[in-house]
């Protein structure tokens, strides 16, 4: 069984739940940017939650199947079409040999996840099938898909007609509220700049990918004056190169915040204002450029409570699918 790529879409890659454990040599965890959608797509087609799926960004690919399978599309609102006929998202349906899957225009969110029963069976590299594009590692030849690629699929046994109702999915809103724990190098900016950072509404910039999301539209930060430490570099936003947490909010030159995501660069020389909490990483994955966004300060206790809540939401969805 295989999936043939007729056209690749804008940026489509093989992803699973990632490869932790190699960040100290600069290899990020990677994996589906929207973890909830990745897991649910797999469960809908009878796979383990960590099977490999296709992550399509903004625009879907066109694919042909060489054998029957059960498939499902989750995540952003990118309507699948089977041989030209629209099919629902968040619901499993059958395909047979020679069938073509394409997608309509994106109606909401940013990334869709396509699971095929049996999972995309590219080689496991460092414990994962995820594509790390910057390092040309994993996935299908270490890169996004191209027309003419053929992806092997494992043996599966899903059933059609399984679906996740809307009330068990994350609700989408027109203003993204990214909860963040201030810290790291927060002390480098003035109190007024810190207050403004949270009060202002930012917008997702076009530079938004698997590495990170850039935001624009707020006021440039004012830094607390200091003599730059030895080795840090001369810009007030420079630090001696340090590790970057997933979700960390760096502000090069104090102008445009960048939130690092699953394919984060693992370190560098820009100060960070804090870190977006783990429960809001999936939300970022579904933001389109120009979406208004605000950063909302929370405490560690809030972050842990949100994480517990997120796990409960996943458990409810899993419970529903387990019947």
């Amino acid at each position, binding site marked *: 069984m295989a999936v043939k790529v007729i056209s690749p879409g804008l940026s489509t890659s093989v992803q699973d739940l990632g490869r932790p454990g190699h960040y100290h*040599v600069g290899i990020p965890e990677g994996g589906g940017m929207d973890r909830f959608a990745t897991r649910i797509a797999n469960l809908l087609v009878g796979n383990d939650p960590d099977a490999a799926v296709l992550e399509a960004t903004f625009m879907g690919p066109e694919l042909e199947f060489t054998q029957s399978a059960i498939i499902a599309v989750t995540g952003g609102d990118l309507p699948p079409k089977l041989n030209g006929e629209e099919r629902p998202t968040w619901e499993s349906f059958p395909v047979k040999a020679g069938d073509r899957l394409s997608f309509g225009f994106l109606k909401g969110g940013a990334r869709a996840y396509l699971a095929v029963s049996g999972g995309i069976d590219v080689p496991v590299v460092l414990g994962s099938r995820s594509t790390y594009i910057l390092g040309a590692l994993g996935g299908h030849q270490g890169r996004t898909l191209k027309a003419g690629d053929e992806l092997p699929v494992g043996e599966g046994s899903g059933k059609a007609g399984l679906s996740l109702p809307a009330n068990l999915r994350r609700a989408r809103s027109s203003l993204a509220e990214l909860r963040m724990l201030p810290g790291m190098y927060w002390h480098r900016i003035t109190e007024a700049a810190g207050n403004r950072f949270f009060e202002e509404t930012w917008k997702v910039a076009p530079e938004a990918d698997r590495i990170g999301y850039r935001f624009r539209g707020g006021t440039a930060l004012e830094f607390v004056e200091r003599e730059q430490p030895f080795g840090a*570099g001369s810009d007030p936003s420079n630090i001696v190169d340090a*590790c970057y947490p997933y979700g960390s909010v760096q502000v090069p030159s104090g102008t445009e915040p960048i939130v690092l995501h699953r394919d984060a660069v693992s370190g560098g020389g820009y100060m960070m204002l*804090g870190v977006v909490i783990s429960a809001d990483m999936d939300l970022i994955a579904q933001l389109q450029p120009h979406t208004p966004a605000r950063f909302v300060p929370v405490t560690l206790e809030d972050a842990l409570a949100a994480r517990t809540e997120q796990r409960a939401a996943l458990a409810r969805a899993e419970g529903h699918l387990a019947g």
Partner: protein
Amino acid sequence: MSIRFNFGGDEHIFGEVSEEMSLTSFFTGLSMTNAVRTAGIRGVTEICPANASFQIRFNPDIVKPQDLLSELKSMEEAASKADPVLKTRIIELPVYFQDPWTRETCLRFRERHQDPSSTDLEYSARINGYATVEEFIAAYSGQPWFVSMVGFVAGLPFLYQMVERKKQIQAPKYLRPRTDTPKLTIGHGGCFAAIYSVRGAGGYQMYGITPAPIYDPTRKVRYLSDDMCLFKPGDIVKFKAIGRDDYDATLEEIEANRWQPTVRDCTFSLKDFNSDIYGTNAKLMELINGR
């Protein structure tokens, strides 16, 4: 000296040993991360040493953030007191300085540079007080470097030269980053050298290129078949300046998969180093030069 600890969201603890770079801070960070690795704390998923700081990633569903923080703090005293002796290795890396490829790239992005009328090497030699590019390269390749961090992208080492502070080479990053840097470029920004493991954007001054791959996701290169990244934090690197003929010959050997870098096990004592920098370095370099 006391480590500044900070929660990076709900999954990371960040520890800043000092704001400024120093070998002592690097060693304290390395001792901390080694202690965390040895302790085998349940729920810890990533242990990342950096130049003068470090980062621990954890799963808060398995280990409570405050408990992990207390455990790290309890290790701090031992880590900063420990006589920093490191069992490590010294790696000799051939570098073709003033090569045509970084030179071409350097000229292509001149308008993004502090001094468009000089090359990166001419500019860096001048601002560091060297009369000629050749003297600058002699200083660059004459004393070894510590791998003080690996990251940004896969396998990219940050290197800190093992000389006293007043001899540290410093250079600003480009005014605006380039959109291109040749793969395996030796670059310099702030007080750090870096080796670009993959082709891509970059802001460091460019001095030369090594024929030796340092990252191989396909693991076909013979010395990268186990670990796809050559460098680990704590490695010592000695650049060996080579010319075009040596570069071409080495490249040919690499393409036939016959070449591998000279690597020797060694022990490094920070105390010995601080009391006699150049004597300590000379002994290290004997390991790769002596047969």
